[in-house]
């Protein structure tokens, strides 16, 4: 019952929350006193980055580690890692695009050689490499093992991205939501909208992951069936 409910409700709830985010972000919340309407990107960019860097890349890394651990090794873990990495790549690209849109008026350039931007781009190349590695190997076991190791190696980059604004002097602003003492930097309707956007994009990730996972299951099934059919056909040819 719960499973059916989550399958049925995940999509509509995600869409409602996304619509709510855009309505609150574009029409209800006030413009920022320093950045004006540009600050409305606060309701999109951090949420997309949260999904790209932490949620989806984290899911891919944990699933990869579980695949490498012999007790929990299963094709499910490999599939989850693969699908999460694909979603992560899409969100990394979106993070860079929304960051660039914010950066152009704020810094005067679309791209700056900033530690956070560069390390995020490097993570994107890692994700591309992961997908390239999967395409290059036909052997399931070998492909799963190698890509799991690569996902874990690439994950080292995530804390570097996170702490880059503290470790180096960067153009990119520090934490947007919390101060160093742990208090909120934004308040009222702006904070509410920010949390709704985080919830919306989190649910969007799970929705996309679930859809992509189902596609992957079907693909694997098709490959297995077509292989079985080819073998049967070959045997028949042998008989005649």
């Amino acid at each position, binding site marked *: 019952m719960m499973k059916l409910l989550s399958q049925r409700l995940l999509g509509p709830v995600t869409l409602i929350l996304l619509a709510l985010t855009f309505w609150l972000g574009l029409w209800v919340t006030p413009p920022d006193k320093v950045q004006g309407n540009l600050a409305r990107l606060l309701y999109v960019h951090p949420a997309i980055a949260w999904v790209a860097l932490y949620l989806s890349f984290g899911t891919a890394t944990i699933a990869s580690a579980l695949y*490498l651990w012999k007790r929990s090794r299963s094709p499910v873990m490999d599939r989850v890692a693969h699908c999460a990495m694909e979603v992560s790549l899409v969100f990394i690209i979106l993070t860079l695009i929304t960051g660039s849109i914010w950066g152009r008026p704020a810094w005067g350039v679309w791209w700056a050689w900033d530690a956070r931007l*560069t390390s995020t781009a*490097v*993570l994107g*190349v*890692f994700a*591309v*490499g992961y997908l*390239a*590695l999967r395409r*290059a*190997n036909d052997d399931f076991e070998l492909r799963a*093992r*190698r890509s799991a*190791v*690569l996902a*874990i*190696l*690439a994950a*080292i*980059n995530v804390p*570097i991205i996170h702490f880059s604004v503290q470790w180096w002097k960067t153009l990119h602003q520090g934490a947007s939501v919390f101060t160093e003492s742990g208090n909120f930097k934004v308040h009222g309707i702006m904070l509410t909208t920010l949390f709704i956007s985080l919830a919306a994009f989190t649910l969007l990730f799970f929705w996309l992951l679930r859809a992509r996972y189902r596609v992957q299951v079907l693909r694997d099934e098709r490959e297995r069936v077509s292989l079985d059919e080819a073998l049967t056909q070959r045997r028949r040819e042998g008989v005649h």
Partner: protein
Amino acid sequence: MIRTALLVAAKDLRIERRSRVLLWQVLPFGVMALVLSGLALGPTRAGHSGAGPGLFYLVMLLVALLMINRSRVIESSPGTQASVATLGLDPAGVFLGKALALAVELWLTGLVLLGGSVLVLHTAPAGTVSALPSVVVTLGALAAAGTLYGALSGGGQGPATLLPVLSLPAFAPLLIAGERSFSAALHGGALWRWWLISLVALVAYLGIGILLYGVLEES
């Protein structure tokens, strides 16, 4: 593990000494790449732009890619695979040995190219000498990371184009740390901070390689 490492390193270096690939193919390529980098900058900027350290590491990355592929080709030949499987060598030792052999090759190439950058890109000889410890550590880290990524890409068994896509993002921080420490040695600045980053990367890649190389080579 150490004994296996020394055995594998000696084997790889012996193959390299006999085949002379490093001497006749990789080194000339590195020198040509360095000269071409100077030509790309132009005669006036090549010697005065301060681009020497960056160009040196860029060329070293290209050279490292060639060497990693070469190292993997040696390892994936059927005879070597069968020997390693029959002898039951410790994968961690194999990783350390291959990384050590690659590091020795990179250090030798690095020495020649440092001399080349003094000649062609006019980097100060005294500064270049004081950058040596950081160059040694950075190239060591490059060798450890390269050995790991070489195994990931499958080397001789996998497509040659896969290695750069997989390894260059991992090499990027090493390039930055190496270039900054070399520049600091030439022009003054926080040399030790960047040198420390290379050292941490070296230790991290050695640790990860010791832990995971067996998983990658497992058949």
